[in-house]
């Protein structure tokens, strides 16, 4: 990934954008953090935020007009958070730091003319930066602040801030008149001058000061900076904001730096942060019971109304995104860094391989950030650069290749026909899990359209999901060739994943969902009247037509449905998609557990993998075919079909069709097919978990007998043997009685055994 690409990914995720309160604060105070601190009762932390963010905290915190509040999202939900009041309460219950923390002294001399709020802010900001400040005033320092009522600005707070300034290196000079002569004198001796334009100045000086640029506060005279009459507006925050901007400009000017380059502009409430308030109820703003200020309890209550504005729309709805503890913007950088590693651990490999590629995040994101696109591209690069961990996808890939192999694949016209106007493609998983229902469904399709051909195969989705573009492209070419050879028929898919793969990659093929061809009237009405929750497969996300067709079909069959919020466009993946279950069983288990809890009713789905994943997670679930073909229906509680049985079922289905439809020979069996193997249920489960096929076990034992090589234990006749199958070495511990093998355990490893060293 190039840096430019990373930046464009990061720009899409707005989670780091400031909350609206912060965006509305001219001092960029993290008002959200401040209010949340007050809500948690951490008044000291709240005070610390004030102290580090706003100038003259005791003054600003007392009288700021709080432009932040007008942007607060609580505005429509009971009234904006009373941030200003919370600041006042915070000041009232905490102590000052006692001194101004200063940087080491700078050799430049700054002078301020006028003692009003803008000047005092300039003095505060620049004194902290180490500049020696001379402040000339003719009226009392504080200017019009002295006109504010005492309850609003307790005089101790004003005086304390002034004392801190004095202690911090600000020298106050009381003079009779602030006039042009003074200015001329100071121009000679000082490096930068700030003038607060108020009634405190002599009119001639007031008229003399050039109008400043309202972003930088700089004037046409290089050394002179001004606030441009903000004081006369009567707004403290405006004066203070101009003071802060002027101080920033003076600091840059004195260092010879540009006043404008890389200078973040004031946001005036503008932020790209999106916060979903749909489920937030209104809660009225707390009004103080006695006097103008909150009690600590009232403040706590008011702060508790804060929404803690975040985005996290995708994370809130996705177990995978939650599991890795962060959000897409961070993940993009982790993936970028992962690729940049030459020597070291690629810690983000698991992040990249655990995404189901379902795109729910992109659907929820205001900017369509797609983890699917990010992760899939990363996987493709990993494969190209030979950095893809083999264990992530290998099992699914070998299953795909077997489904496309000679035994399990079958392509033919309808029995008795030599052309096909339509071609039924049930998909590898449906054939493997429900061979009888697949056969029955095919028979049904032939009733309406007798020249419907049959194609048992795999669409190549695992190759695509694994990032193996080259292998996937070869599969697409092969599918196209075979489709062309059969006369380019309309293709009928029972699986949403197959349908999506073909529609996305082979648009020349007319591809429809089988559910469009099912007429409810041809089937008995559903016997179970208790409602089920319909779970749309993730690959149907954009296929609203199929989703509607299925709903109508279910309705016409008389099966009542319960609502599942995360359905339709917002549906969730069951964990099979993107090969998540292959690469990260822990996350897929958590995904299915969360999904199962979304509704107490049993689930109905039209993807057999969803059904199997749900069943593995202990959720009662049925497939749409269970409603259509109750004679072949399976129990909702039935556990998933084993990986070994899936292979056998596909072969059996293909052989059944070879023999019944085409009077062809069954595919030649493997010589080890007849090896007799037995094991406890617990061992069977162990093999399943370790992804060791029973067929593999037979092959190992057959080869062992042929080569006459095995290990024997002590006197109890327990044996061990191994065989390298592809990239994996499978080991067995077993007993042999006559010609039957009892498997005691099985394990495998990828590490290869080389030579024995002398």
């Amino acid at each position, binding site marked *: 990934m190039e840096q430019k690409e990373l930046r464009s990914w990061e720009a899409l995720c707005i989670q780091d954008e400031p909350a609206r309160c912060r965006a509305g604060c001219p001092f960029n105070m993290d008002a959200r953090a401040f209010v949340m601190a007050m809500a948690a009762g951490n008044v000291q932390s709240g005070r610390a935020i004030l102290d580090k963010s706003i100038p003259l905290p005791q003054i600003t915190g007392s009288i700021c007009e709080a432009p932040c509040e007008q942007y607060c999202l609580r505005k429509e939900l009971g009234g904006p958070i009373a941030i200003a009041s919370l600041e006042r309460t915070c000041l009232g219950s905490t102590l000052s730091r006692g001194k101004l923390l200063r940087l080491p002294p700078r050799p430049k001399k700054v002078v301020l003319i006028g003692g009003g709020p803008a000047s005092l802010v300039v003095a505060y900001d620049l004194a902290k930066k180490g500049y020696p400040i001379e402040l000339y005033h003719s009226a009392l320092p504080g200017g019009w602040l002295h006109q504010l009522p005492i309850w609003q600005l307790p005089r101790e707070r004003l005086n304390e801030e002034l004392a801190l300034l004095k202690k911090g290196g600000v020298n106050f000079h009381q003079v009779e008149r602030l006039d042009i002569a003074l200015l001329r004198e100071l121009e000679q001796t000082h490096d930068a001058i700030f003038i607060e334009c108020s009634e405190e100045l002599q009119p001639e000086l007031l008229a003399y000061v050039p109008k400043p640029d309202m972003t930088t506060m700089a004037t046409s005279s290089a050394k002179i900076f001004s606030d441009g009459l903000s004081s006369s507006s009567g707004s403290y925050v405006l004066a203070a904001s101009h003071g802060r901007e002027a101080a920033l400009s003076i600091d840059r000017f004195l260092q010879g730096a540009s006043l404008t380059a890389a200078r973040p502009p004031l946001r005036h409430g503008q932020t790209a942060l999106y916060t979903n308030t749909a489920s937030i109820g209104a809660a009225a703003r707390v009004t103080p019971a006695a006097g103008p200020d909150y009690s600590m309890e009232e403040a706590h209550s008011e702060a508790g109304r804060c929404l803690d504005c975040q985005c996290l729309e995708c994370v809130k709805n996705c177990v995978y995104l939650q599991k890795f503890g962060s959000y897409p913007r961070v993940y993009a950088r982790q993936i970028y860094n992962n690729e940049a590693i030459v020597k070291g651990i690629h810690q983000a490999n698991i992040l990249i391989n655990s995404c189901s590629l379902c795109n729910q995040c992109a659907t929820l994101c205001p900017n369509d950030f797609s983890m699917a696109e990010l992760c899939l591209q990363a996987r493709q690069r990993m494969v190209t650069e030979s950095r893809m961990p083999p264990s992530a996808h290998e099992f699914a890939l070998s299953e795909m290749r077997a489904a496309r192999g000679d035994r399990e694949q079958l392509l033919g016209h309808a029995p008795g026909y030599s052309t096909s106007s339509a071609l039924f493609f049930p998909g590898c998983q449906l054939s493997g899990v429900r061979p009888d229902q697949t056969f029955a469904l095919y028979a049904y399709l032939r009733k309406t359209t007798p020249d419907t051909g049959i194609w048992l195969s795999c669409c190549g989705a695992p190759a695509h999901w694994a990032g193996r573009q080259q292998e996937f492209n070869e599969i697409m070419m092969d599918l196209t060739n075979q489709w062309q050879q059969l006369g380019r028929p309309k293709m009928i898919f029972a699986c949403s994943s197959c349908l999506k793969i073909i529609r996305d990659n082979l648009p020349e093929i007319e591809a429809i969902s089988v559910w469009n061809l099912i007429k409810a009237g041809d089937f008995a009405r559903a016997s179970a009247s208790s409602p089920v929750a319909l779970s749309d497969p993730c690959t149907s996300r954009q296929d609203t037509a199929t989703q509607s067709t299925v709903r109508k079909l279910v309705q016409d069959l008389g099966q009542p449905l319960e609502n599942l919020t995360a359905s339709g466009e917002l549906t969730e993946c069951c964990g099979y998609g993107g090969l998540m279950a292959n690469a990260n069983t822990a996350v897929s288990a958590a995904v299915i557990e969360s999904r199962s809890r979304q509704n107490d009713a049993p689930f109905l789905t039209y993807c057999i993998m969803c059904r199997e994943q749900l069943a593995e997670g202990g959720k009662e679930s049925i497939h749409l075919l269970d409603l259509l073909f109750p004679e072949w229906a399976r129990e909702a509680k039935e556990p998933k079909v084993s990986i070994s049985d899936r292979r056998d079922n596909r072969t059996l289905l293909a052989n059944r069709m070879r023999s019944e439809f085409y009077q062809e020979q069954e595919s030649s069996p493997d010589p080890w097919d007849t090896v007799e193997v037995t094991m406890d249920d617990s061992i069977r489960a162990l093999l399943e978990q370790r992804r060791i096929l029973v067929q593999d076990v037979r092959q190992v034992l057959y080869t062992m007998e042929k080569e006459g090589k095995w290990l024997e234990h002590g006197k109890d006749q327990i044996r061990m043997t191994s065989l390298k199958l592809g990239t994996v070495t499978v080991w067995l511990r077993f007993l042999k009685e006559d010609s039957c093998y009892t498997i005691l355990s099985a394990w495998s490893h990828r*590490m290869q055994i080389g030579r024995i060293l002398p």
Partner: protein
Amino acid sequence: MKLSFLPPDMDWRCHRCSQLLVAGKVELEYLGHNFNVELPVCKGCGEVLISEELAVGRMAEVERLLEDK
């Protein structure tokens, strides 16, 4: 540092060679990384014993680590 993965129970015989397995040094390899470890071997035919404990334990751990390297 000698990497030794001899199981506590060494009472295993190679059927073909009719010999007890003994401790031997074996080269293991994964993704281009090589290790020399001590494992039970048959001095007759070179058969090596990878116990279940080793395979699903330390070996699996190392394989995962190497895959992320």
